[in-house]
């Protein structure tokens, strides 16, 4: 993404511009809500209540947030290498397959303490594997990564339908689901974990994956800004020619960045399969990969921004579900619209307001003030 030159204080660039863009997305969403004959302010009120104040609402919000952190980080790591990974959806799906296969194979023989690292590794490995091929094709054969990752989303969907209906389906069952995992393989819910410390919390799907998501944020931050590999990734992302002169091999860096990206997306499987569903099934990645694009754009590809953006989208998802429950006119599709508008304003039109801001800050001090 080109960053047109111009003088703007750092805080205005990092805080104000993204806020203006998101505000635009919400203003347009409000206009759309008004256009279908509803009250946008009432909608906001119900959404905030629905996302934070009901019993367990915060848990739901944070459960969605967990997924968005994973997919947002995935998109961001690829972005830093100058790659647009639209394949988060497929990588999350296949990552979940890895979790499910590992857990189904080993939940009879391994205790939880060993099973957990194995399943997390399986998520990373499968997600990374699904991203490796597009990464390899981009690096070695110049195939456009956007197109190949889109294709891999569809291939992943077809593969999963095949596996779930023909291979992994529990015998004698109609719905395409595997058997339920042994209970000791489940990742504890947050309300259970808090219960160990005597803290009462409402039931929700929020589970310990949230901690892993936050750990991933720190790891990605360290990786991108404090390691040699991270420096290579950013160099390749901003100028491949310069990277070559600096002795960096862009092809290798691209492949590694894509694998890391895919692995991060794969962790959605840990949250969904190990944390919530406790079995393999279809469509558990339900759009989280695409939301990751909005999250990464809004969070400016920085872990802190991504956590904040994930929290916002988590609240939107949960608040939106509550809103749909209260008022049938608001289907959860409203959230999809908002998501699209956020991608539009924070991403494609990200610098539209920049010149105006620059003019605002570049305005010379009026003479009267200068004299005083």
């Amino acid at each position, binding site marked *: 993404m080109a960053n047109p030159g111009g003088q703007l204080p750092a805080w205005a660039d990092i805080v104000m511009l993204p806020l203006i863009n998101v505000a635009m997305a919400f203003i347009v969403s409000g206009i759309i809500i008004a256009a*279908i004959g509803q009250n946008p302010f009432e909608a906001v009120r119900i959404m905030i209540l629905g996302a934070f104040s009901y019993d367990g609402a915060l848990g739901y919000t944070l459960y969605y947030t967990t997924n968005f952190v994973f997919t947002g980080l995935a998109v961001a790591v690829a972005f830093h290498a100058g790659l647009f990974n639209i394949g988060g959806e497929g990588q999350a799906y296949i990552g979940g397959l890895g979790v499910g296969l590992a857990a189904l194979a080993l939940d009879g023989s391994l205790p939880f303490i060993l099973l957990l690292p194995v399943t997390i590794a399986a998520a990373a490995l499968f997600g990374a594997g699904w991203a490796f091929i597009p990464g390899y094709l981009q690096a070695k054969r110049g195939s456009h990564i956007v197109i190949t990752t889109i294709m891999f989303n569809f291939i992943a969907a077809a593969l999963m339908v*095949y596996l779930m209906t023909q291979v992994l389906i529990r015998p004698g069952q109609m719905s395409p689901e595997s058997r339920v995992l042994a209970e000791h393989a489940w990742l504890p819910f947050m309300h259970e974990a808090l219960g160990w410390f005597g803290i009462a919390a409402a039931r929700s799907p929020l589970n310990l994956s949230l901690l892993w998501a936050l750990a991933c944020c720190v790891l990605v931050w360290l990786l991108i800004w404090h390691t040699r590999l991270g420096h290579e990734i950013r160099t390749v992302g901003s100028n491949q020619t310069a990277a070559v002169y600096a002795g960096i091999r862009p092809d290798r860096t691209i492949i590694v960045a894509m694998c890391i990206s895919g692995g991060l997306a794969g962790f959605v499987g840990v949250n969904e399969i190990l944390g919530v569903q406790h079995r393999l099934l279809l469509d558990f990645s339900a759009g989280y990969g695409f939301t990751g694009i909005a999250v990464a754009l809004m969070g400016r590809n920085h872990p802190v921004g991504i956590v904040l953006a994930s929290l916002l989208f988590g609240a939107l998802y949960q608040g939106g579900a509550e809103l749909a429950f209260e008022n049938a006119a608001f289907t959860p599709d409203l959230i999809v619209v908002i998501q699209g508008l956020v991608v539009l304003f924070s*991403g494609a039109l990200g610098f539209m307001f920049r010149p105006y801001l620059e003019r605002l800050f570049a305005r010379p001090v009026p003479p009267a003030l200068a004299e005083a």
Partner: protein
Amino acid sequence: MDIGESLFLLVLTLDATVRVATPLILAALAGLIVERAGVIDIGLEGKMLGAAFAAATVAAVTGSAWLGLLMALVVSVLLALLHGFACITHKGNQIVSGVAINIMVSGLTALLGVAWFARGGQTPPLSDEARFGAVTLPGAEALADVPLIGAIYSELLSGHNVLVYVAFLTVPFVWWLVYRTRFGLRLRATGENPAAVDTAGISVERMRFLALVCCGILCGLAGAYLSTGHSASFIRDMTAGKGYIALAAMIFGKWRPVPVLLACLLFGFLDAVAVRLQGVALPMVGEVPVQFVQALPYILTVVLLAGFIGQAIAPRASGIPYVKER
């Protein structure tokens, strides 16, 4: 199964191929025109979906398929112009803009559908007058009983709606437009070397916007076909990835109209065959999973992009915003 019967089955499959391939052809040609001008459009899917919704909505309210088509064109062109506003005027990332349009339209059509019709995102079913009905070519009925030729003429060639014929006629038209007109020459130059076009005193931005308008029109036709030609109402997310298959077909056809047509027919054929192959054991390979056949267009495109079947070389300047030298 005797030969006549299996031939008839083949004709039916090809007939289904034509129906499935129609929106692909229109959308793939739309993608071809913009990419030839140097703009990548991931948003084919969104434009088709928006157009399908607009066509079905207007056709349901007014009872006229033609007014529906008009609205489909308006919506699709507006979405194309939005893409242009973001990535030509404001030099935003073309992929991001396309993704935004796809997500937005997918939500908006469902939201508006529920708000206006309260049918779970579907539009009311259209009567036959509000749809594009089958066009019977002259003599189709008379020839129907002639063996082979009758089947081919009256089943395969005749009896489609007008948009199917439009789609197939668009192929030579786009070929003529791209290779035989001044506009086409400028279009191709804009996609290969925009600086040269600029030097020649032609506005790169204007060329790209014109290409986007063409793209919008073709996607509008494709969308209207889906909801008022092929089916009789709009169904939530009814494009179901057709925009991406069209994109794949465009690459598979290497950005050339006739190969693109063939790619669309191939992908359409795979789709038509997939349904019929369910549970059928093929000689040599045994039973092929339906999902594999459905995924084949995507797999083939990846293999092609990897350079294992010929080479796919995109217009050189596609995806790069043009910044005038100062």
